[in-house]
C-alpha cells in the first residue's frame, strides 16, 4: 500500500468550513490526523476603532446561529466599560438578558440535536449519506421532526420577542436593556394558544431525554467508547453554590478524574489562559498557562458543564443530571458521544429556567439601565450553547475600541476535536483496504459531537461544509471527498 493522506472537506452538519487531513503510511496505518479550520476572519482586528457601544451589535455578525450569545457576552463586557458590573444591573435587565440567553441555548441545542445529530442516532453510522439528514428523519419519524421544529421555534420566538427578530436582533444596551417584556408577550409563551407553551417544552425535553437514554441503553458499547478520551473540562459555575451557571459565574476546570485545576473569577481569565497557534489551522488552541499546552487544554460545552458543576438548579434537569452522573459513579464523564445526552439535559434545564422567568414579575419592570463611572476595559464571559465564550474589549478615552480578544467556545474545543479525529481515524481507518463513506462519517461524528461553530471560532465569512483528503507522507493528494 502506498503512503496516503485522506482529506474530508467540507465536514458536513457542522457550522463553518473545515477540513480533515489523515496521513497514512505504506502499511496503511494512520500516522497523523488534523482538523484544519480554513476560514479566516479577523473580527478582532476590524472592530478596532469602532465606538464601544457598537460592539454588541457588530459581533453578532460573527454568526447566523449564535448571534445572541455574542450579543450577550459583548454586552456584559460593555457594561463594565460604562462602569457597571454584572451584579449591578437592574433585576429586570438581568432577567431579560437571561431569558434571551436561555431561549438561545434552547433553540441552538434543538437545532443541533434534531437537525444535525439525530440522523446519526436514528439511522446509525452505516446509513447511506443521502439518508443522514433531517428530511429523512422527518420522513421516518414525523412526530420527532415536528417536535424538533416546534422546540427550535419556541426558542426563536423568545429571541424575537426580546430582540425584535430571530437573527441579529438587539436587546442589550450598555448597562442594561432597551425594552421590557409585556403581559401579552408573556402570555404568548404561557397560554399555548398560538404555539405550544413552555410546559409543553419541558415535557417534550423530558421525552427526548428518555429517547436518548433508551438509545444509550441499546447501544452503550459504541456510544460509550466512540471517540472517548480523558480530558480536562471547563465551565462557569455559580459563585456561591457551584451550580451550573450559564450567564455569570466563576470559571472552574477539573481534570478527567475530577481534581480541580482552576476556580477563578471569570474576569481573571487573562492571567490563566494562553492561546497557541499552529501553521495548519486558523483556529487557535487555548490552554491553561499553569498546566502548559500539552496538559492544559479543556473541553467546553454541555458535557464539560455537567462535569464541572455541583448540581443543576432546576428540578427535572437535576434529576436527569443525577442519572447521568450515576452512570460514571459520579466521576467526570469523558465519553464524547455522551455530549448529546448532556445537551438534552441542558435543553430541559433551559426550558425550566424560561418558565421560572416567565412567571417572574420583574420581567415586566421598567427600570432597565444602570449607569456608572466609565472604565477602559471590559470582560464578558458566558456559557454559550457550545461552551465558554469570552469577549474582552479595551477602549481609549474617547470610547473607541483599541483592542478586542474573543475566545469562542469552539476554539476551546479545538484540541479535543483534533484528538477525536485522531482517535477515530486510528480506530476505523487503520489497515483498511478501502476508505468507505461510513468511515468518513464517523470522523465527522467525532467533530459533530461538539457542535462546532467554525464561523464563530475563526471569527469568518463563510461557506460551510468539510473536506476529507488522503495524502501520502510527502503531502501529495491521493484521494479527496467533498460534501
Amino acid at each position, binding site marked *: 500500500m502506498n503512503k496516503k493522506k485522506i482529506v474530508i472537506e467540507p465536514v458536513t452538519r457542522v457550522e463553518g468550513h473545515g477540513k480533515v487531513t489523515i496521513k497514512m503510511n505504506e502499511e496503511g496505518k494512520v500516522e497523523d490526523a488534523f482538523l484544519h479550520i480554513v476560514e479566516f476572519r479577523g473580527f478582532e482586528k476590524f472592530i478596532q476603532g469602532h465606538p464601544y457601544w457598537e460592539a454588541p451589535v457588530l459581533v453578532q455578525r460573527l454568526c447566523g446561529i449564535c448571534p445572541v450569545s455574542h450579543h450577550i457576552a459583548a454586552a456584559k463586557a460593555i457594561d463594565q466599560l460604562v462602569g457597571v458590573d454584572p451584579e449591578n444591573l437592574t433585576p429586570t435587565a438581568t432577567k431579560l438578558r437571561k431569558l434571551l440567553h436561555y431561549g438561545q441555548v434552547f433553540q441552538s441545542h434543538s*437545532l443541533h440535536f434534531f437537525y444535525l445529530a439525530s440522523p446519526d442516532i436514528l439511522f446509525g453510522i452505516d446509513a447511506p449519506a443521502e439518508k443522514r439528514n433531517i428530511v429523512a428523519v*422527518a420522513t421516518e419519524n414525523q412526530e420527532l421532526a415536528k417536535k424538533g421544529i416546534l422546540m427550535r421555534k419556541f426558542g426563536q420566538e423568545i429571541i424575537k420577542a426580546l430582540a425584535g427578530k430571530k437573527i441579529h436582533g438587539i436587546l442589550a444596551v450598555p448597562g442594561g436593556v432597551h425594552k421590557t417584556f409585556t403581559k401579552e408577550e408573556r402570555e404568548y409563551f404561557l397560554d399555548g394558544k398560538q404555539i405550544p407553551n413552555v410546559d409543553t417544552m419541558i415535557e417534550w425535553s423530558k421525552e427526548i431525554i428518555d429517547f436518548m437514554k433508551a438509545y444509550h441503553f441499546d447501544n452503550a458499547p459504541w456510544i460509550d467508547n466512540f471517540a472517548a478520551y480523558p480530558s480536562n473540562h471547563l465551565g462557569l459555575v455559580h459563585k456561591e453554590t457551584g451550580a451550573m451557571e450559564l450567564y455569570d459565574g466563576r470559571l472552574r476546570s477539573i481534570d478527567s478524574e475530577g481534581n480541580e485545576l482552576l476556580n477563578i473569577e471569570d474576569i481573571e481569565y487573562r492571567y490563566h489562559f494562553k492561546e497557541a497557534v499552529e501553521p495548519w489551522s486558523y483556529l487557535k488552541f487555548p490552554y491553561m498557562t499553569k498546566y502548559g499546552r500539552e496538559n492544559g487544554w479543556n473541553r467546553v460545552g454541555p458535557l464539560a458543564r455537567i462535569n464541572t458543576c455541583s448540581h443543576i438548579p432546576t428540578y427535572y434537569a437535576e434529576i436527569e443530571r443525577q442519572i447521568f452522573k450515576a452512570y460514571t459513579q459520579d466521576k467526570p464523564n469523558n465519553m464524547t458521544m455522551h455530549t448529546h445526552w448532556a445537551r438534552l439535559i441542558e435543553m430541559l434545564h433551559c426550558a425550566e429556567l424560561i418558565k421560572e422567568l416567565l412567571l417572574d414579575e420583574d420581567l415586566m419592570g421598567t427600570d432597565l439601565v444602570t449607569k456608572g463611572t466609565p472604565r477602559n476595559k471590559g470582560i464578558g464571559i458566558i456559557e454559550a450553547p457550545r461552551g465558554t465564550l469570552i469577549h474582552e474589549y479595551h477602549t481609549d478615552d474617547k470610547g473607541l475600541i483599541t483592542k478586542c480578544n474573543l475566545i469562542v467556545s469552539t476554539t476551546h474545543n479545538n484540541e479535543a476535536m483534533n484528538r477525536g479525529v485522531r482517535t477515530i481515524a486510528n480506530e476505523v481507518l487503520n489497515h483498511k483496504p478501502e476508505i468507505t463513506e461510513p468511515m468518513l462519517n464517523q470522523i465527522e461524528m467525532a467533530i459533530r459531537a461538539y457542535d462546532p461553530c467554525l464561523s464563530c471560532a475563526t471569527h469568518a465569512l463563510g461557506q460551510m461544509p468539510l473536506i476529507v483528503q488522503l495524502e501520502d507522507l510527502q503531502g501529495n493528494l491521493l484521494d479527496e471527498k467533498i460534501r
Partner: protein
Amino acid sequence: MKKLDNTLIIGIGNNTRQDDGLGWCFLEHLEKEGYHEDSLLYKYQLMVEDAELIAKYEKVIFVDACKTQLNNGFEIERVLPAEKVAFSTHEVPPNQILNLCENIYQKKPKSYIIKIQGYVWDIQIGLSNEATENLKKTVSYFKNFTP
C-alpha cells in the same frame, strides 16, 4: 393595504452583500406599493422550520437573487417539492422546504420562485445599477402576476 389572502412572499438574501439584497429590496418595493407586512417575510436563508410556516398558506412565492444570466433580468417559475434532499444549515433550497412541508405536514402550497439576476456580491449596502433595473422590471411584471 393590499393583503394577499393565504399567500406568503418570502424575500431571501442579505442587504449588506450588495445584489444579494435583491429579495429584500423586492419586498420593500411591495411594502411601498401598499402590500400588508403580514404577507411579506424577510429571511437571510430558508431553514427547516419554514416548512411549518408555509404549511399554513395556500400559495408561497420565494424571491431571491440569482447569479445566472437571465433573459429579462428576472424569471418566475413554479417550484415543486424536491425528490431528493440534502441538508446544510447554510443552504436549504425552496424545493426542499416544500418536500419537508409535504412530508411532515401533508401540505403542498402552490409555489413559485422569482429569480432576479444580480452582479456584485461584496460586503456593501446597495444594489448595482444593473440589479436595480432588473428589480424594477420584476416589480412591474409582478403587479400583473396572478399566482
